[in-house]
C-alpha cells in the first residue's frame, strides 16, 4: 500500500509542478554561443540549472527534498564526449532511499543549418547497486559527437532533509549558472561559499498553498485506511543564485584536495520546526553543535558508558604514576590493540565496548576509545573534531564539516593531540592528512575550543654529505640524513617493513648513484628517522677545458622549479613549515683549488615567510657548502604565488652555479 501511495504522489507532483524551464526546445542560435575562455575546451555548459525545494505530499511520509537538474552542454572537441554520459549517485540508509525520476534528454545537431534532435531512449538508462549505501543511475546521451549540444534534466527525491551543494564551477567553462532554492519557513539553512567565485543572490518570500494526504486516525488512535486530503499554507523563502562565465577549475601542483577549491555554495540544515513551537535545532553556533554532539548516541553518550575500561584504566594508573608516561603508554596500547579499519568518521557506528572487543574500528571509534581510556586512567582528555585534507575545509560551525576525531590530553597544562589511527606517529605527532585548518575540542560541560591544526612546528630535514674526489675525478662519500618532526610519519610509512633491497634501490635511484654500500635505515618508533650509506659516483664532476666543475650541492640540488605556471588559482600547500639543512664537505686533491670563493648568499621572502642561504668556504683542500632553506608557513594564498615562484627561481640559480676548480 505504501508503495502504491508513493507512486501516486510522484505522479501527482509531476502534474502539479509547472516546470521553471523548458526542455527539448533548443533554438539553432544556441550553436552560435562560444566559450570566452579556451577555443579548445573539451566542452562547456551553455546553461547549468538547479531547482531545489521541499515538499509534503503525505503526512506520514513527511517532508522530502526535491532537486531538479537541467544542463545544456556543448560538446566542443572529441575530448569532451564524456560530457554526454551522466552518472547520478543515490544515497540510501535503512528504508530511506533517494530516487531519480523523469530523466529526459536530447542531443541536438546542426545539419546543413537545420536542427536535428534525438531523444534519449529509456534503454540507455541503467541502474546499478554500487554498495550497501549507494545506488547509481547512469545514462548515455545518443549521437554524441564533436559539435553537438546535449540537454538533459532529471529529478532526485530525497527523504533526507538536505540541499545538495550548488556547484557552479566545473572542469570546463560554465556560461550561465542559475539555481533556485525554495526553503519553507519550517526549515532553516546556513549557507557557505567555497572557492574563488561568488554568485549574485536575489531573495523573496512567497506564500505557498498545497494539499497533502493523511490517514485519519480511528477510535483510540488506531490507524485506518481512510486517506484524507488537507490543505496547508506556508511562507517559502526563494533564493535565486546566478553567475555568468565561470572559468574552469584545473589541477595545480602543491594543492591538497582540488575539490576544496571548486566554487560552490554549501547548505547546512540549522533547524526544523515540524509542528509549531517544537523547533529542533541542528547547528547554528558552536554551542549548539556541541550540545547536539554531547547528547548524541554516536558521540557524547558513548563516552559516558566506559565502565568496561575501568580495570584497564586502573592498571595504567598504577603502572605509570607519571601522567605523561601514562598517557603515552595508553596511546601505544590503543594503537597496538585497536586496528583502524581505514574509515574516517566523526561519529561512532556502534558502542565503544563493541569496538574494543572486536579490536577494530573507525577513526571515531579508535580515538573515542583512546579518550575514554585516558579518562578512566585519571587524565583529562577530550575529543577534537577534525576534517582531514581529503575531506574538506571545515569553515563553519557544523556537524557535517568533520570526518575525523582526535584525542586531546592535558599534560603539564598543555594539550597534546593524539591520533591512534596513525601507527607510525609518536605521541603528539600528526600526519599530513590531519594538519588541516581548525579542529574543535568538545568538553562534556558543553564548552568547546578552537584548535589550530596547521602544524606550527617546523619539520626538519638535515643532510650531511662528506665527499672526496680523487685525481681521476672519481668520488666516494658518506651520506647521512635525519628527519625531525611530523615528516617522520610519512618516512616510516614508506620504508617500515620493506625488504632491504627495496629500500636500498630507492635511495640508489633517487640520486642515480653507481654504488651504494653500508646502507642503514632507521624507521622504528623509538628512534629518529635516519638514513646513512656510503656511495661512489663518477657523475659529480665535469672537466671542461682542464677546469673542474662541481655542483655545490652535488645531487642534493633542486632539479627544477616546481612552479612553472605563470598564474595561480588555488592556494599553495607545502604540507608543513620546514627547515632543510644541507651540509656538504668536499675534499679535493691537493693539486686543485677553488678558482674563486663565491660570495655567501641570503634570500629573504617578504614578511619573514621564508629564507634561503648558501655559504661556501674553503679550508685548505676541503670546501664546505652550507645550504639552509626555511619556510615558515604551510599554506600560501594565490596572491603570494609570484613571490614564491621567483624565490625558487633565485634559489635554483644560486644552487646550480657550479664551483670552478683550477690546478694550483
Amino acid at each position, binding site marked *: 500500500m505504501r508503495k502504491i501511495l508513493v507512486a501516486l504522489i510522484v505522479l501527482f507532483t509531476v502534474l502539479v509542478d509547472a516546470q521553471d524551464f523548458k526542455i527539448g526546445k533548443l533554438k539553432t542560435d544556441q550553436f552560435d554561443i562560444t566559450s570566452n575562455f*579556451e577555443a*579548445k*575546451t*573539451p566542452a562547456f555548459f551553455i546553461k547549468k540549472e538547479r531547482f531545489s525545494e521541499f515538499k509534503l505530499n503525505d503526512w506520514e511520509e513527511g517532508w522530502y527534498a526535491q532537486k531538479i537538474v537541467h544542463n545544456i552542454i556543448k560538446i566542443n*572537441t*572529441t575530448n569532451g*564526449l564524456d560530457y*554526454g*554520459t551522466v552518472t547520478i549517485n543515490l544515497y540510501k540508509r535503512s528504508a530511506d532511499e533517494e530516487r531519480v525520476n523523469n530523466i529526459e534528454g536530447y*542531443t541536438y545537431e546542426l545539419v546543413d543549418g537545420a536542427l536535428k534532435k534525438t531523444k534519449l*531512449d529509456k534503454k*540507455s538508462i*541503467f541502474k*546499478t*547497486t*554500487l*554498495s*550497501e549505501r549507494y545506488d*547509481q543511475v*547512469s*545514462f*548515455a546521451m*545518443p*549521437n*554524441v*559527437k564533436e559539435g553537438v549540444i546535449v540537454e538533459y534534466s532529471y529529478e532526485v527525491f530525497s527523504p533526507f532533509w538536505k540541499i545538495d551543494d550548488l556547484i557552479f564551477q566545473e572542469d570546463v567553462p560554465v556560461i550561465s549558472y542559475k539555481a533556485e532554492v525554495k526553503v519553507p519557513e519550517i526549515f532553516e539553512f546556513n549557507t557557505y561559499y567555497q572557492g574563488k567565485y561568488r554568485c549574485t543572490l536575489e531573495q523573496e518570500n512567497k506564500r505557498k498553498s498545497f494539499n497533502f494526504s493523511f490517514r485519519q486516525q480511528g477510535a483510540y488512535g488506531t490507524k485506518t485506511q481512510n486517506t484524507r486530503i488537507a490543505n496547508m499554507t506556508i511562507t517559502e523563502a526563494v533564493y535565486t543564485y546566478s553567475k555568468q562565465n565561470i572559468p574552469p577549475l*584545473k589541477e595545480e601542483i602543491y594543492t591538497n584536495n582540488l575539490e576544496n577549491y571548486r566554487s560552490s555554495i554549501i547548505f547546512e540544515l540549522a533547524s526544523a520546526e515540524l509542528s509549531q513551537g517544537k523547533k529542533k535545532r541542528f547547528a547554528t553556533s558552536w554551542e549548539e553543535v556541541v550540545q547536539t554532539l554531547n547528547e548524541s548516541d554516536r558521540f557524547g553518550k558513548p563516552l559516558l558508558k566506559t565502565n568496561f575500561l575501568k580495570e584497564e584504566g586502573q592498571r595504567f594508573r598504577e603502572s605509570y604514576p607519571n601522567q605523561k608516561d601514562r598517557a603515552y603508554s595508553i596511546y601505544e596500547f590503543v594503537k*597496538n590493540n585497536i*586496528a*583502524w*579499519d*581505514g574509515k574516517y568518521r566523526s561519529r561512532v557506528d556502534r558502542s565503544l565496548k563493541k569496538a574494543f572487543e572486536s*579490536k*577494530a574500528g573507525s577513526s571515531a571509534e579508535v580515538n573515542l576509545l583512546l579518550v575514554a581510556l585516558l579518562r578512566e586512567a585519571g587524565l583529562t582528555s577530550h575529543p577534537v573534531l577534525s576534517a582531514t585534507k581529503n575531506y574538506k575545509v571545515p569553515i563553519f560551525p557544523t556537524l557535517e564539516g568533520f570526518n575525523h576525531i582526535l584525542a586531546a590530553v592535558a599534560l603539564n597544562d598543555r594539550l597534546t593531540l593524539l591520533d591512534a589511527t596513525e601507527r607510525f606517529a609518536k605521541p603528539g605527532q600528526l600526519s599530513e592528512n590531519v594538519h588541516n585548518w581548525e579542529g574543535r575540542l568538545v568538553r562534556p560541560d558543553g564548552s568547546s575550543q578552537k584548535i589550530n591544526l596547521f602544524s606550527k612546528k617546523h619539520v626538519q630535514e638535515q643532510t650531511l654529505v662528506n665527499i672526496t674526489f680523487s685525481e681521476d675525478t672519481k668520488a666516494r662519500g658518506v651520506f647521512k640524513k635525519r628527519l625531525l618532526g611530523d615528516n617522520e610519519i610519512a618516512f616510516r610509512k614508506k620504508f617500515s*617493513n*620493506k*625488504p632491504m*633491497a*627495496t629500500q636500498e*634501490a630507492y635511495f*640508489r*635511484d633517487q640520486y642515480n648513484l653507481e654504488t651504494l654500500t653500508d646502507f642503514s635505515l632507521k624507521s622504528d618508533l623509538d628512534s629518529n628517522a635516519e638514513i646513512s650509506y656510503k656511495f661512489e659516483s663518477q*657523475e659529480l664532476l*665535469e672537466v*671542461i*677545458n682542464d677546469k673542474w*666543475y662541481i655542483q655545490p650541492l652535488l645531487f642534493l640540488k633542486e*632539479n*627544477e*622549479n616546481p612552479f*612553472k*605556471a*605563470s598564474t595561480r588559482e588555488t592556494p599553495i600547500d607545502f604540507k608543513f613549515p620546514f627547515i632543510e639543512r644541507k651540509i656538504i664537505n668536499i675534499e679535493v686533491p691537493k693539486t686543485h683549488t677553488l*678558482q*674563486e670563493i663565491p660570495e655567501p648568499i641570503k634570500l629573504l621572502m617578504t614578511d619573514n615567510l621564508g629564507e634561503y642561504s648558501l655559504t661556501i668556504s674553503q679550508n685548505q683542500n676541503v670546501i664546505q657548502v652550507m645550504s639552509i632553506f626555511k619556510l615558515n608557513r604551510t599554506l600560501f594564498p594565490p596572491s603570494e604565488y609570484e613571490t614564491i615562484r621567483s624565490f625558487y*627561481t633565485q634559489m*635554483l*640559480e644560486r644552487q646550480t652555479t*657550479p664551483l*670552478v676548480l683550477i690546478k694550483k
Partner: protein
Amino acid sequence: MIKYFSFLSFFLFIQFNLLSQIPSLGIEDIDPSLMENANSVVLEEKIKVEIPEIDKQIITKYRAVVVFNKNGNQAVNAYEAYDESIKVKEVRLSIYDKSGEELKNYKKRDFQDYSAVAGGTLYSESRVLVADYSPKSYPYIAVFESKVESNTTAFISPYFPVSDYYSAIINSEYTIGAAPDLEIKYKAINNDENSLQITQTENVINISSNNVKALIPEDLGLSKKKFFTQVLFGLNYFSLKGVKGEGKDWSTFGKWINESLLAGTNDIPETTKQEIIDLVKDVPTDVEKAKLVYQYMQDRTRYISVQVGIGGWKPMMANEVDELGYGDCKALTNYTKALMDVAGVQSYYTIINASNDKEDITENFTAIQGNHVILALPQNDESIVWLECTNQQVPFGYIGASTDDRNALVIKPEGGEIIKTKKYELNENKFSTIGTVRLNEEHGIKVEAQMTSSGVLYGQHYGLESIDEKDRNKYYKNYWDYIDNIEIQSIEVDNNKDQVLFTESVVFDAESYATEIGEEIIVPINVVNRSNYVPSRYKERKQPLVISRGYNYQDIVTIEIPMSNSIKFIPDAIRIEEDFGKYEFLVEKINETELRYTRYLEIREGIYPREQYKNYRSFRRKVTKGDNQKIILTK
C-alpha cells in the same frame, strides 16, 4: 565406458566442502631464502576445477598466505567476482596471528558486495564480493576459501603459481578435471626452468609448484605475462553463458565466433545504407572507400561500454550503434564492418590483446583469448590495413603501440586465422627536432623549435592537437623541465593525418639560461632535447634487456651568441655504438657568433641477454652526459 567410470571416481575424489582448515604450515616453517624480497609467502594453495558438464564449472580454492607488511596485503586476494552466470556458493576468510591464533573470521554474509563497474563502463552486471580486512600488525596469516559455480566453460582461469611480484610460495597445487567428451587441453608458458610438476591421467590434470622465490619487477624487463610461469586451459567443446561452442583449432573456433556471436548483428538502417552508398559511389578504389567509411564512423560514434549477459562477448547490434552513436570495441568494430559491407569493402572482425607489451594471442592454443577488437582490411597485395574503431581522432590505418606487432585472431567467413599486426620499424618511429637558439647579453635565450613525430611516436604526440592552451603550456614547460623561467610565446601544431606526421612549432624565452662565473659564461648546449633517463640499477639482474620498439631521434640546432662574446670552448664529438643503439653528438662552429649541433640517438628493438642491461645503463649514462655538455664563452 571405462573412461566414464574413471571420470566419475575422479569427482568422488575431489569433491570437498570448505572446512576452514588451519594451515598445516606456520611462519616458522618458511625457509629464510624464501623470505628474501617477499612481502608475502603462500604457505599452501589448492585450486580445484571440475567440469562435469559442458555448462557447469565448479571452482574450489584454498589459499593460506603469510603477509609480512602493508604491500603484502594484496596477496590475500579475498574476493570473488560474480554475475548472472557465476554463483559464489561459499566464500570465507580467516585471519590468524603469527602463532596461529584466530583473530578474525569472515563468513559470506560478512563480505561486502560491490558493483565491479570499471572506468568507461556505463553499465556492467559484474559484481564482486570482498572481505575488507584491516590488519593491525604484521605478520599475519590469511586463509581464503571459496567455491564458485559457473555455467560458462569457455573460460577456465589460468594457473599462476606465483601471481605477483614480491610474493613467494611454498606449496601450490592446481587440479582440473573435465568430462571426457569436452576434450580438455592445457599449455604451460614460461616454464623454462621446469618449476611445475605436471601429471595427467585420463581427464584429470594435476600441476604443482613448490618453493618458488619472490620475483622483483625490473625496468626494461618482460611483462608479467611473458615472465611468470603459467598454465592455460581450454576445452574443445565449451559453453559461453548458454551458447555452446567448439574450438579444436583456430579455424573452427573462428567459425563458431562468426556463426554464434557475429551472425545477425550487422543490419544497418536504410537511411544510413543510402548515405554510405552515396558517400562512396564515385570513389574508384576500395582503400579510398574504406577511408571515407572510417571517417564517417569516427564522426558519429564514441566509446562507451555496456556489458550485459552475452553482450560481454556478442557485439551490440549494428543498427543500435547507428541509432545511439556509441558502443564498446566489439560494437564499434562490428558497426564499422557492417558499413564496410554496405560500401562493398571486405573486412574482418579481429580479436587482439591491447597492451603496450605486445602480447600475442597464443598461436598454438585455441581458446578464448584477447581483450580488444579491431578491424582488418585485406589489401590486394595480401597485406592488411588495421583499423582501431574506438578512437575518434586516429588516422586511417593507424594502430600505434597498443595493438602493433603481435598475433591477432582474424575472423574470416571460412574460419579464424592468426595474423601478425603491423610493426612500426625503427626508421618509421622518428622524432626530429630542428631549432634555433639565440643567446642574449643577459644570458637569456629565445628558442624556436620544430618537432616532428611519426610512427609509434606520432601516437604519443597527436593528442596535443586537441588540448587547450593552458594544458599545452603546461605540457611544454614540463617537456623542457630542466629550463627554468620558460615563457611560451607561441605554439602551433599541425596534424598531417594522411602522412601520419605530427609537427609542433614552439617559440619560447627563458631568462638566466647561461651561468656567468668570473670571466666565463657556461652554456649547456643541448637546449631542446635533453635526455636524463638512466634505467634503475639492479645488484643482480635477472631478466633480459627488453626493448620493445626501435626509435630514432634527430636534432639539428643552431645557436647564436651575442657579438660581444667569443667562443672559448666547444666539446669534442661523441660517437657511441652498441648492439642496442647508437648516439652521436657533434658541435660545429659556423662562424664567430654561430654554432650548430647535431644529435642522433637510435634505440634498437630486441631482447638482449641480461648481461647487456649493464651496458645499456652505461650507454644511457653516456647519453645523459653528452646531452648535458657545455660550451664556454668569454666576455
